[in-house]
């Protein structure tokens, strides 16, 4: 499983293979040059200083100086190219990850909080970056140094080398144990950082409510709890390291002691020289130093591995809806939408029961019913955000299962109950559906709404703020509505999209819809009598069932539930 993550991570971004290879070569070159230095120094001392030959010393120093200059350029280049590999890797992963996230079905976003997903794009990438920056290059050089040192040690004396390496299996076991613990704790570190960010995100986006209700202390307490869990997970990882790292050091000391002990005996018996022993000790350091460096990187690697596992858990999520179906139905037949015995459930109880109706081209339909009756659910099924649990939803007599996601998006516009605007100007928001094609000025003049925007200091260029917070809720709705209308889709669904508007603004936008698209089929969910009376036919929902579908007059005369609603409207009149 471990190898799987590692190999997959590598395979995910083939673009970096070549640069990685070259960067490694350069890094190797640097290591090679670095090795020359001590050689020159010891020669300088042995043959220069010891023999009182200053000329020779100068010569060696000059060469040393040149290697230093070379070393500077090579290391600098090596660091740069390995850094580049890391940055490009993280960049590609980010791009892939977000692209994939945005392609997932709506219900994925219902199960996963925004903050957690943001953590995957930020904090997890940081831990990857750390590995890419520090780890990748030194692992290679470390491994090579260890390899070289092992050979050197064996060349000096086989028996002592074997003895000194006897302790290594122990190290292997320790590393294994460490790995298991590290994987578990890093996974929970990643898990909790997601929770921290999502708690933070909620605390920020809900700050207005929190302040209005003086809920600061409780919120902080909740945040602190999550934050503390993250801290605990981090400290657990610190504990793992604090036990594992000393273990390495102990191995090192023990094996040096073993070598000296047996070496001393061998020297006594004359089968080893002091010089050989010194050399052996020297090379053992060359063996252990990179090993310690390696274990350091190993830790970063485990952390990055956990992040990658998180990334894969998202990448492995299959977008259902955009994959199924590739039909694009013809737009001429009469029946635009047809629900055939539709049942639907969000995963809990069934919220639509056996709903059947059909809507013809150009019809203006209103949906009424109590809250929670399933009106928005119908809208979302029309939008193909979900597929029905049972029965069938058809567009132009093709099942929504077979219809391509793209077709649905190009032909259906939807104004959700909660109007969401993007940061930027009103203009940018209005042309959202097709920034290059929409000629906003002339469209607005055409439908006579250009004046509406004169209320702002900067007109259409007024900034709306995050989620549209810097305009009033009604204005926000107006902009969101107009955005959908300007998309000029065949079918348009308004989900209580005029609830916060005054009646004047509402009727002006509904008029605009009519002007803009003559044969547009519109479905309006609303609670205000004025809005509903504009519709040709009214769909009455009650507790997930369709209880009436007719025009106002007929419903008023023969539909109990509708009569009740109407009497509520006319209560005072």
């Amino acid at each position: 499983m471990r190898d799987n993550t590692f190999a997959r991570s590598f395979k995910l971004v083939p673009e970096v293979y070549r640069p990685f290879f070259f960067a490694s070569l350069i890094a190797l070159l640097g290591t090679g040059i670095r090795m020359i230095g001590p050689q020159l120094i010891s020669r300088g001392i042995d043959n220069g200083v010891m023999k009182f030959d200053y000329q020779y010393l100068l010569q060696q120093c000059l060469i040393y100086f040149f290697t230093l200059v070379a070393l500077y350029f090579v290391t600098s280049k090596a660091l740069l190219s390995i850094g580049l590999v890391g940055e490009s890797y993280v960049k590609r992963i980010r791009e892939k990850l977000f692209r994939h996230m945005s392609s997932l079905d709506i219900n994925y976003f219902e199960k996963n909080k925004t903050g957690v997903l943001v953590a995957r794009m930020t904090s997890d990438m940081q831990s990857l970056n750390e590995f890419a920056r520090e780890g990748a290059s030194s692992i290679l050089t470390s491994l090579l140094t260890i390899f070289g040192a092992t050979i050197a040690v064996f060349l000096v004396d086989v028996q002592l080398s074997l003895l000194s390496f006897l302790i290594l299996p122990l190290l292997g076991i320790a590393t294994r144990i460490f790995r298991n613990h590290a994987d578990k704790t890093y996974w929970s570190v990643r898990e909790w950082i997601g929770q921290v960010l999502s708690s933070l995100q909620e605390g920020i986006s809900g700050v207005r409510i929190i302040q209005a209700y003086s809920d600061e202390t409780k919120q902080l307490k909740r945040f602190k709890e999550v934050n503390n869990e993250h801290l605990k997970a981090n400290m657990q990882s610190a504990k793992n390291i604090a036990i594992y790292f000393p273990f390495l050091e102990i191995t090192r000391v023990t094996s040096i002691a073993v070598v000296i002990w047996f070496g001393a005996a061998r020297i006594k018996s004359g089968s080893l020289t002091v010089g050989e022993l010194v050399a052996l000790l020297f090379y053992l350091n060359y063996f252990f130093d990179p090993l310690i460096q390696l274990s350091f990187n190993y830790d970063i690697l485990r952390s990055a591995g956990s992040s990658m596992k998180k990334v894969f858990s998202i990448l492995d999520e299959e977008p259902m809806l955009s994959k199924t179906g590739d039909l694009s139905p013809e737009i001429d037949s009469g029946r635009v939408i047809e629900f055939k015995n539709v049942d639907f459930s969000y995963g809990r109880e069934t919220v639509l029961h056996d709903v059947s109706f059909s809507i013809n081209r150009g019809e203006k339909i209103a949906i009424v019913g109590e809250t929670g009756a399933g009106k928005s659910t119908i809208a979302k099924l029309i939008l193909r955000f979900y597929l029905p649990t049972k029965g069938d939803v058809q567009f132009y007599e093709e099942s929504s299962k077979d219809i391509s996601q793209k077709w649905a998006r190009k032909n259906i516009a939807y104004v959700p109950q909660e109007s969401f605007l993007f940061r930027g100007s009103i203009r940018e928001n209005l042309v959202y559906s097709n920034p290059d094609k929409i000629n906003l000025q002339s469209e607005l003049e055409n439908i006579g709404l250009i004046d509406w925007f004169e209320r702002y200091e900067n007109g259409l260029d007024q900034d709306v703020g995050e989620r549209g917070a810097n305009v009033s809720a009604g204005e926000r709705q107006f902009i969101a509505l107009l955005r959908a209308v300007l998309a000029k889709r065949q079918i348009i669904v308004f989900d209580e999209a005029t609830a916060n508007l005054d009646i004047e603004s509402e009727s002006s936008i509904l008029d605009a819809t009519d002007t803009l698209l003559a044969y547009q089929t519109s479905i309006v969910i609303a609670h205000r009598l004025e809005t509903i009376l504009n519709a040709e036919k009214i769909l009455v929902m009650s507790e997930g069932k369709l209880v009436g579908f007719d025009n106002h007059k007929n419903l008023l005369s023969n539909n109990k539930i509708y009569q009740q609603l109407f009497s509520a409207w006319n209560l005072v009149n």
Partner: protein
Amino acid sequence: MFKVFKTPEFKKAISFFIEGIKENKKSFFISNASALLWCFLVILQPYLIKRIIDDGIVANNERSVIVFISFMVLAGYTRAMSIGIRRYFSMDVSYNVEAGIRNRIFTHMQKLAFNYHDQVPTGDLMARASSDASQVRLAFAIAPLASANIFLLLILSGTLLSLSLPLGSIVLLSIPMVLWLASNFSSKAMGVSLKVKEAEAKMTTEVEEQLGGIRVVKAFGNEEHASNKVENAVQNIYDSSLDYLKLRTRFVPLFELIPMVITLAVLLLGGYLTINEYLSLGEFIAFTQYVFLLIWPLRITAWFLSEIPSSVAAGNRILELLNEIPTITDDETPNELPVDGNGSLKFSDVSFKYGNEKIFDNLNLEIKGKKTVAIVGSTGSGKSTLAYLLPRLYEIESGSIEIDGVNITNLRLSDLRSNVSLAFEESFLFSNTARENISLGLEDASQEEVEDAALIARAHEFISQLPESYETKVGERGYGLSGGQRQRVALARAILRKPRVLILDDALSAVDASTEEEIRNELNQVMSNMTTLIITNRVPTIELCDEVVFLENGKVKAQGKHHDLMESVDTYKSLFLENQTSEI
């Protein structure tokens, strides 16, 4: 020469870091002490080996061999322990500092008023609390090791000086060299790494926004557009990171080079001195041995110094947020609301602006206690703004607002806000349970009270049908509920606190007419005990109110009964024009 270290940014960040150390004194001390111990044991090792070989093996003294090997093993094991201890406690400091920063950011951000949050995107604040805080952590993680190494460096330099004055001074030169390099690097790197941090914040903002609006993105089939926006932001990170990388790779190898250059200089000068017999050969060899010992500490120090600029830049970004002064705070000598007050309201000459945009211009309004008043006006006329001003969510520019004769600026914020309860136009639910959402801001609300409020808001019925009833989590922003259900939860929340003044800002817009009627009837009883402001454009609701306040052009245009206003005020009447024509 070392100007960077004297810049205000640098100083601020350092004093911020010192605060972090102070909060974790004990762990910081332990980690530093064990780092020091480690350093000394590292130096001891070659010495012990030398003794084993010279006094033991070469001198053929088995006892010495045993003694010194035991010493070496003991020292080695102690060193191993010190590594573990240092690691653990330096992480303890750094993680605690990081968590502390997060808590502080969260706390502080809650104190900043609406006008701040109108300007600063969520993602930006998140970036400060996540990636910037982690960057600061890094400095703390390395600090103990670095400070021990710097100490070691000083001691070694002293030893070297005592061994040979000229050679020692050459070695000492390395210290200003490293500092000079570091300051040079820092002055360049701070700006660049700030850019990296800003680019990261921009991306966080972009991702947070696109994911938050994913329903809109998908409804328009604009996934491609969203990805492109995020990719642009990612590209910006990449570009600025490359700039930083280029700078770093120019400097960092120089840091590494310093010890080597010093060895070179020692070799040249020392060799010269030895050859000309100013120095004995033994002294020279010993000296070079010590110079080798310098390499490692110098490297660590350089590494530490090269990480500093990023941490300073990140620290400054965090400080920027923490130093933002909350504009709306408690009065120093707060007044109390009169116990027998009935919630009368008085706005005198209130002016208010959002930025440059004037919303209210000397608005005057008086509302008697326990009345139910409809606030009516066209979209954007300032109804919601009026609602925000009462609980002091925005500060007015001039004039005064009084509740029961007490100016709201003289009240404790928590008092004011528990007495003025506002149900927002857009009901925001937390991903908590239904019960926690209703009892927001109240520590001690009983289940019974919660259910009572839910009953009035007609939320009890559907909540009790949820899988875990009141303990069901409602999903992010309450997206697991229908719009009207969300609004009713929010309404219950507003009622539960039994405020003196209740403001319903279009709080029933997603509720169907018959449920609204039921709620209205229930509310009638509650409302008779408090002043209620209802912002709405539904005629039946307006007609039920004692009076109507009609807002136009930043002023109260008219106040009175609905029927009277319909007759006397043309612009008021035209608000309901559609209503008239479509009457059947």
